[in-house]
């Protein structure tokens, strides 16, 4: 058994998984409240990555930042969160709200259009080349935790810690505050919530803001750790985030966190071991196959996900 490799894969899986978990959270919150698959969610992440890249360039670039490194990273994440939050609110206002009472498929097609529009707008404005944060120049690879077989770059720790912090913050928001109560009530029964004096539209707007802000933060974290960003990156992260949300139990916050980490670990392990297992017949690109099989298995055996409750139809 190669312990170094195993530890490395766990670290990779947790980093990737925390990003998936952030995507899954926003996706799951919106689904819980509107019963709508926000297919443009991955593209919000992509825009967040580009905003972070823009802030980085504006403050001098990775080689020669004009502010302290920790402040730079905080600024990148914050600006991306605010920017993506407003992007999410705009998407809700213009693409989804006019379709609240339309047949179920209408907002989904609208979401496809939004996704396509955002992707091609970024392609139009920034071109198809991959952009890099060059975070290795920002923080040296050697800086980090070195403890036995455990060698972790500090930025990976930052990604995991900030994702965990945001999830805890969200958990407190949803369970302890008045807004959280309103969100839960709206998710449970929108009409009843409206009759109890909750301004449903505002709750929905805030949900979109928070969910999209999380995706924006995830975009910056992706750029910091995995380096390259381009206009099409949102597809992969969106897809894995959806899968994580379904596996964890769509609409459930702990489910999204757990599902994200689970999918991240599964992907990292299959990247690491699929070649050994299939004796070289399948390369590491086939890790998607493993994730897809997990999704299918869950759909067949436990469609409500790990933390979800079975869907009971009301008439």
């Amino acid at each position: 058994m190669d312990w170094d490799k195993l530890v490395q894969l766990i670290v990779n899986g947790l980093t990737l998984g925390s990003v998936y978990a952030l995507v899954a959270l926003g996706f799951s919150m919106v689904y819980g409240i509107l019963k709508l698959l926000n297919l443009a969610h991955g593209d919000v992440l992509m825009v967040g990555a580009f905003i972070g890249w823009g802030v980085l360039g504006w403050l001098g670039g990775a080689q020669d930042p004009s502010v302290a490194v920790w402040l730079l990273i905080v600024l990148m994440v914050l600006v991306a969160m605010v920017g993506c939050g407003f992007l999410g609110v705009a998407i809700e206002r213009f693409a989804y709200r006019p379709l609240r009472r339309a047949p179920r498929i209408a907002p989904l097609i609208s979401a496809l259009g939004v996704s396509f529009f955002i992707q091609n707008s970024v392609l139009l404005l920034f071109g198809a080349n991959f952009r890099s944060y060059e975070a290795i120049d920002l923080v040296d690879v050697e800086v980090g935790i070195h403890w036995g077989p455990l060698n972790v770059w500090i930025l990976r720790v930052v990604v995991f810690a900030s994702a965990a912090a945001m999830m805890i913050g969200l958990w407190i928001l949803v369970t302890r505050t008045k807004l959280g109560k309103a969100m839960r009530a709206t998710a449970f029964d929108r009409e009843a919530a409206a009759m109890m004096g909750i301004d449903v539209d505002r709750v929905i707007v805030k949900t979109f803001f928070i969910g999209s802000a999380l995706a924006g933060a995830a975009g910056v974290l992706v750029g910091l750790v995995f380096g390259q960003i381009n206009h099409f990156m949102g597809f992969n992260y969106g897809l894995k985030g959806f899968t994580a949300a379904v596996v964890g139990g769509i609409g459930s916050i702990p489910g999204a966190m757990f599902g994200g980490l689970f999918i991240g670990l599964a992907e990292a392990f299959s990247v690491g071991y699929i070649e050994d297992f299939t004796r070289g017949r399948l390369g590491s690109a086939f890790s998607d196959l493993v994730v897809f099989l997990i999704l299918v298995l869950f759909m067949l055996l436990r469609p409500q996900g790990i933390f979800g409750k079975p869907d009971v139809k009301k008439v």
Partner: protein
Amino acid sequence: MSETPETPEPQQPRIGVDEWVASAEERRRQGLGTRIEDAFGRTPPVVKLLALVIPFAVYPLFVDSEYLMQVGIDTLIFVLLALGLNVAVGWVGLLDLGFVAFFGLGAYLYAAVASEYAGRHWEAQFAIPLIAIAVAAVGFVVGLPSRRLVGDYLAIVTLFFLQLWLVILVNASFTRGPNGISDIYPLEFFGRQVTSLDGYFYVALIAFVLIISFLYLLNQSRTGRAWRAVREDELASELMTMPVNRLKLLAFAVGAGVAGIAGAIFAPVQGAVFPASFDLVLLITVYAMVVLGGAGNLLGVTVGAVLINASLEALRDANNASWLFFSVIVIALLMLVRPRWLPVAILAGTVAFGLVVHEVAEQLRPSLVEGATFGGTRIDELAEQWVLLPEGAIGPDGLPAGALARLAYLGLVAAVLGLTLVRSRLWRSIGVVPVLYLAACVWENLLLAQPAVARFVLIGAMLVALMAYRPQGLFGRQRVEIV
């Protein structure tokens, strides 16, 4: 509201919500449009089919360029794709995001039974039906995992299936990776090979006639009625003992089979298949075709596919894209804005506004008008005297060189969205003038520099706008329902 005090006659039934919906037909506006619609409704389907097929059938007689023939074949293949997607999306209301994977599967299966690489050459009269059945079976299996769930999960599973399909195509050795399979044999029917583009065009046309007839009859059948019932209310149809899950899977499989046939024609036309041909761009283009024409309407879907493919071809080239862009804006204004003098006033105002802005800019900052447009039509030559063309805003690679072009683009998006929020007609009519001018500026500067990307931006925007303002598409009829 169960009572309407304004209807005094007691002998007539009081109009409740249900009756209001039921009588929607009688309340339609009586005008030319309605009369055309009614006459159209009375036309027998065979006549409609002929009216649809004859323009296609004579197309090769009037066209002698190879490029236009190729566009014609592509259009027919797109029509087949749109018809296939319409089964799941339009009739059953399922979001099938893996649809182009089935198209790709059909193409690769044809490559597997008729190419030098495979070392076989099956005749098409066996190959195409077998491929259709095989692809339909795969569609059935892909749909299976989500059989217990609402349609939303189907979207995720099928989207993931598309991703997986692309991963397999690019990475597996038997598909030859990104290089694709490039020595595909032409179609061969009963020992006779199809060699010319005209021949392929007629093969595609025959496939179109057969498929649209099949789908028309299917839609008229018990199954078709059941599909529409499932779309309207899943729970109610389940209570009426319809096998909802089996119906959904059937629709899914039928759509996949049609896509497979389209793929099996596409592969020999191209002579090669590559993974890059079956991506998300194609998927959303086909969705745009179905939605523009009117999901659920066979004629609408066909016309939508023709319109979108023709527009995409026209927009590909900066030398004629401007004609389409500006005429669509003018026609949309003339059709949508009432009273009739208002769009004329708006257009005149926009021209005057542009002249003033151009003049002021030339006096204050000459560099703002010294750039050149990327377009090559007469319109673009005229526009150079009218829109702002800042020098150096667009780099030689067609990408924005500074923040100016990017900000203008984002400003345009924000302005268009903001305009939809303005309620007052006066302010909206005034506001539309600078927005139109800004749109013309962005078009001449940025969008014409990359027409291949700009057309997809327009497709995305069109999908959102259609869903918000005319979800029934061009040909569909407005839904009236009980809320």
